[in-house]
C-alpha cells in the first residue's frame, strides 16, 4: 500500500469513527509495516489551514472544526425557563400583598416557604427587601422590583388586576364530595 493510500484510509477511518482513533487501532487497520505516526503527520499536514483540522485528543485522533470557525457556527437557541409553581405563587402573593413578611406569605399560601424559593426570586431580581416591620422579631418586609414590572409588561403595580376582580370567592367553590364509588376527578 502506497503512503498516499494509507493516508486516505486513515482519513476515512478517523472521519467515520464515533470516537477518537488510537494509534494502535490505526496500526491494526493499516498494513503491518506502516509508520502510523508518519501517516498521521502527513494527514495532519494535508488538513493544515483548512476549515477542519486533525487533532489528537483522549489518546487518539479526530477531526475538529477549526478553532477560528467554531464561533461563527455557534448558534444560540434561547429556551427561557419557567418559574416553578411554588415560586410563581410566592411572587404573586408578594405582588398583591406587599410589603409582606415571610410569615404572612406562608399564611396566605397555607404552606411553608422554602429558602430555595425565596432565593430563586431574589436571584432573578423579582423581589427585594423593603425594610422591616416594627413588631416582635422585626421581620423583613418583601416587595416586588422594577424588574418584576418589566417582566410582566406593567407600568405600575396598579396595572395588576384588582384582587376583588380575581377573588370572586377566595375560598373557592366548596369541594363536591364524590358519591360513594365515584372516582374523584
Amino acid at each position, binding site marked *: 500500500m502506497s503512503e498516499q493510500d494509507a493516508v486516505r484510509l486513515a482519513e476515512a477511518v478517523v472521519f467515520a*469513527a464515533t470516537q477518537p482513533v488510537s494509534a494502535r487501532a490505526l496500526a491494526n487497520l493499516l498494513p503491518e509495516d506502516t509508520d502510523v505516526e508518519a501517516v498521521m503527520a502527513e494527514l495532519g499536514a494535508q488538513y493544515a489551514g483548512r476549515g477542519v483540522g486533525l487533532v489528537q485528543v483522549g489518546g487518539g485522533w479526530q477531526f475538529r472544526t477549526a478553532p477560528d470557525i467554531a464561533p461563527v457556527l*455557534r448558534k444560540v437557541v434561547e429556551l427561557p425557563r419557567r418559574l416553578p409553581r411554588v415560586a410563581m*405563587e410566592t411572587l404573586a402573593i408578594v405582588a398583591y400583598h406587599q410589603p409582606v413578611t415571610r410569615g404572612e406569605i406562608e*399564611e396566605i399560601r397555607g404552606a411553608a416557604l422554602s429558602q430555595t424559593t425565596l432565593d430563586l426570586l431574589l436571584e432573578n431580581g423579582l423581589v427585594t427587601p423593603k425594610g422591616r416591620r416594627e413588631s416582635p422579631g422585626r421581620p423583613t418586609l418583601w416587595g416586588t422590583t422594577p424588574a418584576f414590572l418589566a417582566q410582566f409588561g406593567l407600568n405600575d403595580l396598579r396595572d395588576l388586576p384588582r384582587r376583588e376582580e380575581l377573588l370572586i370567592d377566595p375560598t373557592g367553590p366548596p369541594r363536591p364530595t364524590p358519591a360513594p364509588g365515584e372516582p374523584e376527578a
Partner: protein
Amino acid sequence: MVEAESLVLQLEGFEGPLDLLLELARAQKVDLAKISILALVEQFLSVIEGARRVRLELAADWLVMAAWLTWLKSRLLVPALGEPEDAEAAAETLAARLQDLQAVRAAAAWMAQRPQLGWEVFGRGQPEDFTETDRSRLRLEMSALLSAYLAARRRAGAKLQYRPQPMAYHSVQNALERLARLVGSLPDWSALEAFLPEDLEDGLPRRAALSATLVAGLEMARGGILHLRQEREFGPILVRNGPGDEVGG
C-alpha cells in the same frame, strides 16, 4: 415438465402466485411484452397441479390464481366460448402486472447496487453540534402569575375549611361585663343562672358560662359591687345589688 416439477418444491420460496408467474415468464427468455400468456398459464397450472399431488393443501391465493388462469386458458383456446376480447384484455392485464413487478425487481436491484450510507459509504462518526441552549431568561406570563395567585388563595382557603371551629365560651371578661350591666336592674336576690346569656347550649358551654359568671361574681363581690349568697352546699347561688359578702353559710 421437469422445470415445473422442480418448482413445486420451491413454491414456498415465492412471495405469491404473481412472483411465480414472473419467474416462469422470465424462463421464457422473451420480452415480457411479447410473452406467450397461454404457455405461461399452462406452466403455472402444471406447477400447481404438481404441488397439489405432493401436498393437498395450498394457500387460497394460489388456488384463486389457478382458477382464474384456468378460465383465461379456456377463453384463449376456444374464443367461441364468448367474450374473446375479455380474454385478450385479461391476458394483457396479466402481462402488464408482470411488467410492473419486473420493474419493481429491477428498481430494487438498482437501489441495492447503490453505495449505501452506513454500508459502502460512511458519514462523520462524531458530528459536532454548535447549538447552545440559553436558559438564562425567564418566561413569565401575567396569566401564570394570576392563576398562581388564585391557586395559592384557594389552597389556603380550602385548608381553612378543614380547621375545627374554635369553641366560643362565655369568658370571665364577658361575664364581668354582663353582670355589671344587669345586676343594677334586679330588685332583690336573684339566682346566678339568671345572668347567663340566653342562647347557651346545654353541656360544656353552659357549665363554662356558669363558672365564668361565678368567678366574675366573686370578683365583683370582692370589689363591693354586689352580694353573693348560698343557703346550702350545692344550693342555688343568689346575687343582689350592693356591697357586702355573704357567700357560704
